[in-house]
């Protein structure tokens, strides 16, 4: 029972980081029908930027904000410069383009920041809290991670649901033609959407780095697990992405705890296949099915 609690807490904490990546993927998918495979590499890159800032003796929280801002800029730039020309082309173009960005970023990062694996600081202790005689199996940094992702999600939800800007962004994603007629700058909305998604990814990068360390492809697995979560939930559903990512986090944690950490990704694969066998469009997609 004690082990089960530990694995569950671990699963939820990791799952929240995957959820941030999953949500970023879903935001971009809903806006442009593109899966951004470079999401993880972008997060790696912005985390490196934060590390450089911290190594210059700057306060952690300042570096934290810089990482998020860098994510926003990187995401917006990627959309405006690279993705815009392929948005109207067959989907495979965008897939390959984002894989190209992924490979390029993972090659440039070691050139700029050095090839060796580096440790990344956490703003809070990573040792489990003990109150009196009871151990809580959760560290202050874990709580911060979960809290930060939750706050980011709530803020994004409010932006999308309660502001005019959010309404414009949703309209631009939902029907670009009509939105354009109504005077919405659709291109600008898509750029902003990519920027916000990459910001969320950058948050995941900073939160994951203390545990997985920082190297050029440290986010590959996080991206794959986040993507797995997003697919399990259904790429069109933000809620589904979060639930799917939490599920992936839990499954990975249980497999890794009870069977062996090397088999955790296999557990994720089995979960993915099992869900997709039953619901090929993910758990939370209730749209029209393809039909002849």
């Amino acid at each position, binding site marked *: 029972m004690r082990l089960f609690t530990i694995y569950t807490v671990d699963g939820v904490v990791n799952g929240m980081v995957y959820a941030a990546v999953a949500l970023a993927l879903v935001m971009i998918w809903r806006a442009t029908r593109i899966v951004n495979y470079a999401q993880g590499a972008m997060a790696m890159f912005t985390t490196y930027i934060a590390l450089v800032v911290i190594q210059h003796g700057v306060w952690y929280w300042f570096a934290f904000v810089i990482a998020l801002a860098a994510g926003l800029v990187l995401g917006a730039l990627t959309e405006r410069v690279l993705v815009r020309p392929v948005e109207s082309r067959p989907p495979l173009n965008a897939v390959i383009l984002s*894989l190209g960005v992924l490979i390029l970023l993972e090659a440039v990062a070691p050139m700029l920041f050095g090839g060796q694996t580096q440790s990344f600081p956490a703003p809070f202790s990573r040792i489990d809290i003990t109150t009196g005689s009871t151990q809580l199996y959760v560290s202050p940094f874990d709580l911060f991670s979960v809290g930060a992702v939750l706050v980011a999600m709530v803020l994004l939800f409010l932006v999308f649901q309660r502001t005019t800007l959010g309404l414009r962004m949703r309209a631009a994603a939902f029907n670009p033609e009509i939105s354009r007629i109504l005077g919405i700058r659709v291109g600008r909305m898509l750029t902003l959407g990519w920027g916000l998604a990459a910001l969320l990814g950058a948050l995941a990068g900073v939160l994951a780095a203390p545990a997985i360390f920082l190297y050029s492809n440290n986010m590959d697995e996080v991206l794959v697990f986040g*993507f797995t979560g997003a697919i399990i939930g259904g790429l069109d559903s933000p809620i589904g992405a979060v639930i799917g990512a939490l599920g992936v986090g839990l499954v990975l944690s249980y497999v890794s705890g009870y069977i062996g950490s090397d088999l955790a990704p296999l557990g994720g694969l089995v979960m993915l296949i099992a869900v997709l066998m039953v619901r090929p469009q993910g758990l939370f997609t209730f749209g029209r099915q393809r039909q002849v």
Partner: protein
Amino acid sequence: MRSLLRRSTLLRHGLFFLALAAILGALTWFVFDPFTEYNVAGVAIYAISAAGLTVLTGLNGQVSLGHGALMMIGAYTTSVLLQWHPDLPLILMLFASIATTGVAGAIIGIAGARLRGPYLAGATLSLAVALPQVPTHFASLFGGNQGISVPTPVPPDALAAVTPQQWFTWICLAAAVITFFLLANLVRSATGRRLQMVRDNEVAARLAGVDVARTQVLAFVISAICAGLAGSLFAYWITLTSPTGFTLTLSLSLLTVVVIGGLGSLTGAVLGSFIIVYLPVWTGGFASSANLPSNVANNVPLAIYGIVLIAAILVFPRGIAGGVASISRAVATTFRSRRQTSTLPASPAPPAQ
């Protein structure tokens, strides 16, 4: 003779690939130095795997981000069998790897037949990440992280003058020529047309009586078989089969090969493989002459792949083969119109991928 050649694809391809095999065999024997032989074997191996991916992604439209994992299944089949019985002949290993990978491809294909677009890509991506960690867990069977060393194949006694390196290069080239001969015929066959029909319009294919799911599984099995064959040869080529040889980077490199060369083009698969093998050689030479630090030099090829992928999509969406084809078509058109003998209507440009 000419009309016979035009009518019979099998005969035309047969003669072409026999000539190709003779030329490549002679080059290996008379011209290539050991370093070139090693690289040519690598090109052949990548080309076999890329050709399979060309059929799957280019012809059938299913994106696989996990082809490195399929190569891994082939490589481990060979390595584990050789670990038990080091004397087993190479040809048997190739067929054993083809068999296991074919079965794996069928399983993945059946699981993936209902999946479209990002859902299939996600499943194969997940495979590419999950599979390389399996040997670490079952270390007693798969040699763990250290991997399994693979003996170099020796030429038969009758060919005592042939070095093992030349012998292996011949084997790789022969495997590649046979694979490309079979695939070139497949592309022109009824099955090949069905693969493309499913890619272009699933609904129309279904209305025309094509079993879409079955066609997709078939495409997966064909491409898995190629990956298995390539994986088996890959094990002999790098002489050590370990999980680090089959990371996500390998899967992405294979997709790069297919895209650089030109999606859906078998010639493109060869051109792309040539680049992927020789680019690190060239940049390595450049980096050492320019005295670049190792963290820069090691990543130059990777950076170039990334740039080339992006440029390929933004500038040359049809890859090298497509670019060459359109240039030669333009040249041919000018030539023909100058001679004023053009009787055929200009062939419509194929749709951009």
